[in-house]
């Protein structure tokens, strides 16, 4: 099986559900070409998404977010049944020169016709306080909330991965 993400056009942020294990089904809905009424979420695609396995605590989601629309799309926040808190993170050098993760307050901007790569050591979606262990081969559903009020949902498989261990400097650290 090729595990593919399942982009779903949702104008209202629906409660995301953990898909069953069979869940690589579902085809992408064809975005409507109409200009003014097109929600940002329908311009996005997520490719090669995956989530790092973890027994507890923190994890991260990665993949390639592409925007096929004519307008920039801004991801303002993210949610998932897998964890009560998700944050949009970037990895930057701190004053000491160490690479650290920090919250990206202004969100991820995916330029019109462009893409951003979410990758270990770079931009990523951080899971905090996992609700349950994320085991390899599970599916995790993530909802990205966008600046126009629409949202974009993708499903990603969990994979064992020993990287992605950047130091996190949260809101209280500085």
């Amino acid at each position, binding site marked *: *099986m090729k*595990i593919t993400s399942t982009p779903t056009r949702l104008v209202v942020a629906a409660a995301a559900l953990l898909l069953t*294990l069979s869940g*690589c089904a579902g085809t992408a809905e064809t975005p409507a*070409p109409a200009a003014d009424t097109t929600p940002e979420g329908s311009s996005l695609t997520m490719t090669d998404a995956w989530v790092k396995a973890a027994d507890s605590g923190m994890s991260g989601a990665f993949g390639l977010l*592409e925007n*096929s629309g004519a307008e920039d799309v801004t991801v303002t926040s993210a949610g998932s049944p897998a964890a009560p808190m998700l944050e949009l993170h970037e990895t930057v050098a701190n004053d000491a020169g160490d690479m650290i993760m920090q919250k990206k307050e202004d969100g991820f901007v995916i330029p019109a016709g462009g*893409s951003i790569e979410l990758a270990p050591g770079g931009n990523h979606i951080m899971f905090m306080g996992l609700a349950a262990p994320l085991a*390899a*081969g599970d599916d995790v559903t993530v909802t990205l909330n966008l600046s126009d009020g629409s949202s974009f949902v993708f499903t990603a498989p969990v994979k064992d991965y020993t990287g992605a261990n950047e130091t996190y400097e949260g809101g209280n650290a500085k």
Partner: protein
Amino acid sequence: MSDGRQEQPDPARRRLSRRHLLLGGAAAGIGAAGAVALDLAVKAGAAAPARTAEPMVSGSDTVPFFGAHQAGVDTAPQAHASFVALVLRDGVDRAGLRRMMRILTDDAARLTQGDAALADSEPELAVVPARLTVTFGFGAALVARAAGTAPGWLKPLPAFTVDRLEPAWTGGDLLLQIAADDPMTIAHATRMLLKDVRSFASVHWVQPGFRRSAGSEKPGTTMRNLFGQVDGTANPVVGTDDFSALVWGPADNPAWLTGGTGFVLRRISMDLDKWDKLDRSGRESAVGRTLATGAPLTGTREKDVPDFAATTALGFPVIPEYSHLRRARSEDRSQRIHRRGYNYDDTPTGTAVSNSGLLFVSFQADVDAQFVPIQQRLDTLDLLNQWITPIGSAVFAIPPGCAADGFIGDTLL
């Protein structure tokens, strides 16, 4: 980007674009022109590995992953293979097996097409598929964990008198046969698959093997083993009804195995030092074939049908009664197998200068009905037994292939 993107999203194209992003396009060894050719192939349709222009190298050749049967069985043998047996960890249940096979299938589907696996930490090593195939096999213990029905033959082979089996080379719950024309590709694919399987299973044995390098000789040439013998001449011809019946059945197998087959690996140590003491005519008598061409001693070409009735001037059979050729052959045409073995050449120990042999690999729909009678005849009498010793043995069920929205083993799990 393009208008086409607003129509039907094409995961393959998008993955390719990711590859460009990750690898900086032309820098990665596949080259921009190769990538364009691949892109065209993707547009043209899924199955054919149709390359248009480009490559002067064979590293971009791919074998389709999805289909009714798993690849790596009727695929023309690649130059290199690594056989890996794993033992399931305690507590991995049916749901765990399902998660395991989904992940491994996804890895294999990507890597065999020259794409990095998800979370591949060395994606640059994935871009030379070199006809990579990954074939999965299930042992009896795995089928039991899945609460499935095992075929009657999915168990250790009967004990043969020639066997000197070592536990370190015997058995296993899950088989990975990873084969490609490039050993670098195999190393990366193996590493990736084993990283993803380690929370479910641990490595029991790894057996790498080799044939002639890709392009060294005419495609389709029967391989030679390290005794110098042409080895595997009697194989059924891929694509024929004969092959299909022998390998895919029908056989008395459980329904989940429809489209699958049986797998036997025998690690056969070959005593090259002892073989050195045998002159050429003795070597040819032992096997019943000439060393030069592999022709039966009654013929001139490899594929000539042996004449077992032919006698020498002294009245002895030209193909001796004790020869491997005569002993391996059955009057019953259903007692045949599809061989797909490899040579091994390990580090010698002690004062020896060789530690070599054959990874005897055969595919057959029913191991008990096809492989076992042959081995029983060879066990009873085969002059070659003086120089060869089976030191490892394993039997696996090879489940059928899967569709792009399925996974290997989905008929069982």
